């Protein structure tokens, strides 16, 4: 009896996804999937270029400046690969949002739907941190330009 009561109370607190909301989400999911797939391909190509180019540049710098120069190039490449890894993670989160939300709507699976929303939250969270870093960098470079 108590369980039924609490279930009813929980249901009252819930908001249902209606027809319009579902349609809107389906189109959102379609565009986000497109963005995620193109992003993954683009970042994959960029990673390949960085890895192939790194060996050439590393060898060239080592010949010209010795081991110290090669170490610096290695550090720069490590930073680029780290940034790329973060971006790939962001794009994967966007892809997960599109896949899980679509699956949730198609199969009426609440767990998949919530998982999709969580992936979108992670996507925005990482983008938010990147946004804050971008803002700090922009303020810093603007102050330097104005001085």
């Amino acid at each position: 009896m108590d369980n039924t009561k609490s279930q009813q109370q929980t249901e009252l607190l819930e908001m249902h996804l209606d027809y319009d909301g579902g349609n809107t989400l389906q189109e959102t999911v379609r565009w986000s999937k497109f963005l995620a797939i193109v992003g993954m391909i683009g970042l994959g190509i960029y990673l390949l270029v960085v890895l192939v180019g790194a060996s050439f540049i590393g060898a060239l710098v080592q010949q010209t400046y010795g081991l110290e120069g090669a170490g610096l190039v290695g550090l720069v490449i490590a930073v680029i690969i780290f940034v790329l890894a973060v971006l790939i993670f962001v794009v994967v989160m966007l892809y997960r949002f599109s896949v899980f939300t679509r699956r949730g709507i198609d199969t009426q699976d609440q767990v998949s739907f919530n998982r999709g929303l969580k992936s979108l939250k992670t996507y925005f969270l990482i983008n938010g941190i990147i946004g804050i870093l971008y803002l700090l960098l922009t303020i810093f470079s603007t102050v330097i330009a104005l001085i």
Partner: protein
Amino acid sequence: MENQIPPSSETGTDLDNFFNLSFDMVGLDTLRQLSLWAKIISVCAFIGYAFSLAGALFGHPRSSGFIDEQSSAVTGSRISNILGAFLVVIVGGAINYFLYRFAVGIDRGVSSMDALKVNEGFNSLRIYFKILGIILIIVLAILVIAILIELAGLAGR
């Protein structure tokens, strides 16, 4: 009563299906966090655009010691910087406006438990992703055209 048209099976099923999904306590909490971070992203972007515009408009031109600050090269670079900043502000501003609307819609919808406002929020998210997708298509088209022109140039040599 006999003349009543029964709902088409497709529409009826779709309607039934959508009503089965809900934003439960976990979903509502996720939506709250989602809207917070979306708001942070858009506000950071707006402030960043203002700063970059100020930097482009009032910043000192970057010139080497060999080139006079009043030379046409420096002036041209300054004009292109300002135009570039304006373009970024207009396009980025439009994109982030919809992201902000999404955040506000979701926030209001969750706090007042109004599904209509949540729908409006998701509609803004749809427009946000749509604009991003269209920009991506345009960029890819320009890239393909540039590669084709480059290949045609190489073949002509």
